[in-house]
C-alpha cells in the first residue's frame, strides 16, 4: 500500500486527520518490510519519535521446498507444465492448498490442467481479478466453510482476510521477490508455533535459480528492501482541489501540512505552487484561462473554490485507481434481448484482437467469442475445442533487486552449484567450458552467429522491464553504428539483440554507457503507446480528464482518446508542464524501470566481460527460444498500416486484371 499512489493519497489524508485531531492514533501492520523506519515516518506524518515499534518475534520458520527434477527442467516458459502431476499429488496430500500463479492466463491454464488430472473429483476452485465479483465471493465463502481442497489464484489472494484453514502454499513459477514469497507463504497456517509449508515449482532453469535464492532468503528471514517513494504530483493536485472544496485555506499552511506526509517530505515550495496553479486553472504558461479559475484567492489571502461545480467535479473523480478500458464477458442468451450470465471482465484490447469464432480460456471454461453488444462481449461455451488464443497479459512483476543479486552470486559461486539439481549443474558446467561464468559484479556479454543472423546476449538479471528499455536503447545505438539491428528480446534474466552484422567488435563500454538515458530515451518515448497510457492515468487522477460526468459514466475508450490528443498538444507547446512531469516519473518507476536500469549501468561500468563465440552458449538457450516474441517497435505501427494498405491495393489490381482478361 505504502509504495503506490493509493499510499500517497492515504498519507495526505493522515496528515489532514492529524491536523484536525492531533491525538489521532494510527496502527500499521507489516510482515514483509525489512527496515521499519520509513514506515514509522509514514504512519506518524513526519514525527517518528511519536511512534512506537512493536516487533513480533519467534514463530516457527516456514518450511520451503523447491520442486527438484533431476530428469527434465524446461529451458524456457513459465507454466511449469512438467510438474502438474506432482502439484496434483501435493493437493491430494493436504487439507487445503493455495496454488499461487503470477498471471491470470497462467491461472486459467493451471486450473484447466489440474481438472484434467482430477480423477478424485477434488473440489478445486479458481480465483483471479478478472472474474465476476459474485463468483469470487462464492469461492471465498466456500474456502471459509472448508468445502474446497485447492484454489488456483493470482495476487488477489495475497492479502486480506484469512479464508479457510490453508495448510499448504504452492508457488507456480518464479516467486519474484523474497517479501512477496514470505507474504504468500504466510497464507498457510497462522499458528505461531507451527511452520507454514510451501512448495515452489520453477518453470524453467533460471527460475530454479530464482526459487533456490528465494528459499534461502525466506529461511534466513531476509526481505527485499524498498526504495522510499516520492509522492505523485497528480495525487497532490487532487488533494489540493479537495482541500479547496473543504474550505478556504492559506497556501503556506497547506504546504506545511502536505510536507508532513512522508511521501511529500521533499516537495519543494515551487512544485507545490505549480500544483496549486494547475488546480486553479490548468497551470499553463499561456494565461488565457485566468477568467475561468475554479480556485480563487480572496481579499483575506485565502484560497477557495469559486462554485459548487468544482466541488462536484472533485467528488466525482476522487481516488487513484484508473481502470483500463474493460469489456464484460457475458454468455449469450437464448434471444438477443435476454443476455445470459456475466462471467467477468477482460481488457478491451484483448477482445478487440478476437474475431467471431475465436476461442479462449476464461473463468475455467473454453469460450467462443460470438459478437459485441454494447459493452458486452457475448460468448458461448465451446468445451470440445482447442482454445486458439489461450493467453492475455497479466501484471508482470520484475524480480527484486535483492533476489537478482542473490541469483548472480549463486551462479558465480561454484560451491553453491552442489545444492542444485543435476541438469542445472551440467548446464552451468558446460557454460564454464564453452563461454564464461561472470563474477557477481560483472556483466557477461556474448556475441555469436546463429542461422544467418548475429546475436549479442547479455545477462543483467534485472527484470524484463529494465531489459526491455535497455534493448530499445541498445538497438538505437547499434543502428547508428551501422550494425543494422533487427530486433531484440528481453526476459527476466537476459537480453538478446540480433542483427545483420557481427557485433563482436563494438566497444562495449561505450555501448553500455549511462548517457544512453538522455536523448535516445526521450525520442523513443515520444511515440510510445505506454507513455500515452501513463499520461492518461495521470490526467484522470489530476482531474484534467474527467472520468465521470454526473449521471453518465464515460467509457474508458473515450477517456483514452481525448487524453492522447492532449498529450500531443502539451508535449509540443509546454514540455515541462506538471502533468508531463508526473507522467514521466510514473513511467520511470513503472514500465521503463529506469531506476533499475541506471543502477545496472552504473554497476557494470568498466566491468564488462565479453565472450566472442562461434555458437549459442548454454546460458543463451532460454532467450534464444523466446526470440520470435519481440521486434523493434516505433516505426512498427506505421509499417503495419503500410503493409495492410499494400495488400488492399494488390488485391484491387488482381481484380482489375481479372476483369480485363
Amino acid at each position, binding site marked *: 500500500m505504502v509504495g503506490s499512489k493509493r499510499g500517497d493519497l492515504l498519507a495526505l489524508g493522515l496528515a489532514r486527520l492529524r491536523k484536525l485531531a492531533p491525538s489521532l492514533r494510527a496502527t500499521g501492520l507489516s510482515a514483509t518490510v525489512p527496515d521499519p523506519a520509513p514506515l514509522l515516518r509514514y504512519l506518524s506524518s513526519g514525527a517518528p519519535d511519536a511512534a512506537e515499534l512493536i516487533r513480533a518475534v519467534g514463530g516457527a520458520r516456514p518450511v520451503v521446498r523447491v520442486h527438484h527434477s533431476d530428469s527434465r527442467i524446461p529451458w524456457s516458459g513459465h507454466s511449469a507444465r512438467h510438474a502438474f502431476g506432482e502439484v496434483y499429488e501435493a493437493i491430494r496430500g493436504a487439507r487445503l492448498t493455495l496454488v499461487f500463479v503470477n498471471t491470470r492466463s497462467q491461472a486459467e491454464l493451471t486450473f484447466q490442467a489440474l481438472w484434467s488430472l482430477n480423477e478424485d473429483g477434488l473440489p478445486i476452485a479458481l480465483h483471479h481479478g478478472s472474474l465476476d465479483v459474485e463468483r469470487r465471493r462464492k469461492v471465498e465463502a466456500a474456502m471459509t466453510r472448508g468445502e474446497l481442497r485447492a484454489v488456483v489464484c493470482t495476487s488477489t489472494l495475497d492479502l486480506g482476510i484469512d479464508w479457510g484453514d490453508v495448510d499448504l502454499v504452492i508457488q507456480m513459477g518464479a516467486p519474484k521477490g523474497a517479501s512477496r514469497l514470505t507474504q504468500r507463504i504466510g497464507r498457510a497456517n497462522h499458528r505461531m508455533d507451527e511452520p507454514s509449508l510451501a512448495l515452489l515449482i520453477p518453470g524453467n532453469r533460471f527460475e530454479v535459480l530464482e526459487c533456490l535464492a528465494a528459499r534461502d532468503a525466506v529461511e534466513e528471514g531476509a526481505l527485499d528492501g524498498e526504495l522510499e517513494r516520492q509522492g505523485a504530483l497528480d495525487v497532490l493536485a487532487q488533494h489540493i482541489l479537495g482541500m479547496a472544496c473543504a474550505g478556504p485555506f492559506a497556501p503556506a499552511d497547506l504546504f506545511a501540512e502536505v510536507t508532513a506526509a512522508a511521501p511529500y517530505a521533499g516537495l519543494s515550495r515551487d512544485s507545490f505552487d505549480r500544483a496549486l496553479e494547475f488546480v486553479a486553472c490548468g497551470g*499553463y504558461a499561456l494565461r488565457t484561462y485566468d477568467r475561468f479559475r475554479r480556485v480563487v484567492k480572496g481579499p483575506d489571502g485565502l484560497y477557495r473554490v469559486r462554485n459548487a461545480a468544482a466541488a462536484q467535479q472533485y467528488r466525482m473523480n476522487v481516488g487513484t485507481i484508473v481502470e483500463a478500458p474493460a469489456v464484460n464477458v457475458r454468455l449469450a442468451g437464448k434471444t438477443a434481448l435476454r443476455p445470459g450470465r456475466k462471467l467477468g471482465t477482460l481488457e478491451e484490447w484483448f477482445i*478487440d*484482437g478476437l*474475431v467471431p469464432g475465436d476461442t479462449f480460456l476464461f473463468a475455467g471454461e473454453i469460450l467462443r467469442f460470438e459478437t459485441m453488444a454494447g459493452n458486452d462481449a457475448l460468448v458461448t461455451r465451446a468445451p470440445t475445442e482447442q482454445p486458439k488464443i489461450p493467453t492475455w497479459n497479466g501484471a508482470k512483476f520484475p524480480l527484486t533487486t535483492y533476489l537478482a543479486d542473490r541469483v548472480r552470486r549463486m551462479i558465480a559461486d561454484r560451491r553453491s552449484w552442489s545444492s542444485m539439481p543435476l541438469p542445472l549443474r551440467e548446464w552451468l558446467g558446460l557454460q564454464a567450458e564453452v563461454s564464461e561464468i561472470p563474477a557477481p559484479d560483472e556483466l557477461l556479454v556474448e556475441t555469436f552467429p546463429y542461422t544467418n543472423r548475429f546475436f549479442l546476449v547479455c545477462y543483467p538479471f534485472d527484470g524484463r522491464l529494465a531489459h526491455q528499455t535497455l534493448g530499445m536503447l541498445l538497438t538505437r545505438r547499434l543502428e547508428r553504428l551501422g550494425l543494422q539491428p533487427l530486433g531484440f528480446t528481453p526476459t527476466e534474466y537476459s537480453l538478446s539483440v540480433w542483427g545483420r552484422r557481427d557485433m563482436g567488435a563494438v566497444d562495449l563500454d561505450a555501448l553500455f554507457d549511462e548517457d544512453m538515458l538522455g536523448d535516445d530515451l526521450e525520442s523513443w518515448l515520444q511515440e510510445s503507446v505506454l507513455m500515452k497510457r501513463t499520461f492518461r492515468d495521470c490526467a484522470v487522477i489530476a482531474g484534467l480528464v474527467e472520468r465521470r460526468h454526473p449521471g453518465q459514466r464515460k467509457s474508458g*475508450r473515450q477517456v483514452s482518446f481525448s487524453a492522447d490528443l*492532449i498529450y500531443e498538444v502539451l508535449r*509540443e507547446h509546454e514540455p515541462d508542464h506538471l502533468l508531463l512531469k508526473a507522467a514521466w516519473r510514473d513511467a520511470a518507476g513503472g514500465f521503463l524501470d529506469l531506476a533499475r536500469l541506471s543502477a545496472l549501468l552504473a554497476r557494470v561500468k568498466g566491468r564488462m566481460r565479453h565472450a566472442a563465440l562461434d555458437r549459442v552458449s548454454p546460458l543463451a538457450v532460454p532467450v534464444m527460444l523466446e526470440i520470435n516474441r519481440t521486434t523493434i517497435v516505433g516505426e512498427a*505501427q506505421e509499417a503495419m*498500416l503500410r503493409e495492410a494498405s499494400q495488400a*488492399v491495393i494488390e488485391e484491387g489490381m488482381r481484380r482489375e486484371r481479372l476483369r480485363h482478361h
Partner: protein
Amino acid sequence: MSDCATIDFCGEKLLAHPMGALFWPAREVLIVADLHFEKGSSFASRGVFLPPYDTRTTLKRLSALSRRFKPRTVISLGDAFHDRDAEARFDLEDSALLTSLIGAHRWIWVLGNHDAHPPGAFPGEPCAELTLGALRFRHAPGGDEPGELCGHFHPCARIRIEGGVQRRRCFASDDARLVLPAFGAYAGGLNILDDAFGRVFSARPNVWALGAGGVYLISDRLFVPEAGAPRLRAGA
C-alpha cells in the same frame, strides 16, 4: 507527394494528406473540415482546463500545408469555430496567425452546425455551400447529386492489425460522396462502422486511414466497432 494518397473522385484527382486535408491540384484548392477552433477554452469555461494550445496547433498545421501545397484557395468545410463565442476567446497571437493565413489565399468558410453564423472578426467568404466544377462543398451531406465533399462526421477507423487495434482518423468515400476527417487538434471521432455512415454512403465506402507519414487505403475486413457505449455524437 509520397506521403499523400491519390483519391480518384468523380473524375478528379485529389491528394489526401496525413494531417487530414485534401488538395485538389487541378484547381489549386486546399480543403479542410471541422477545425473546431477554441474547443479547449470551451471546456475551460466549464472548469476542465485542457491545454490552451489547440487553436495554435491547428493553425500551425494549416500553415505547414499552405507552404507545402501553395494553394490559391482554402475551403473550410464548416465547424471551423467550436461555438458562437469562440472568436472572442482567440489569443492575440493566434488571431494574427489566422488573419494572415486568410489574407494569403482566397478563403471560403462553408458554414456548419457549430458555426451557423459567418465569423465577425475574421475576413473570408462565408457561404452555406459551394460548387466548383464537378465538386460540391457542404458541411453535412445535403443532396443526391454526385461529387459532394463534406465534413461533420469526424470519421475514425479502428483497425485490427496483428492482434492490436489502432484508432485513426480517416477519409471515406463511395462513388458519390467523400467525407473528410476532422482537422482540429481536439476534435473527437465517430467510428466508421457507426449506423450514421450507412445513411451517408450507398455502398461500403473506401476508407483511407491517416498514419504519421502516409495515408493508407484499408480493407473494411480489418475494422473494429467501438466497444464502449455511449458513443460520441456526430460532429460533437
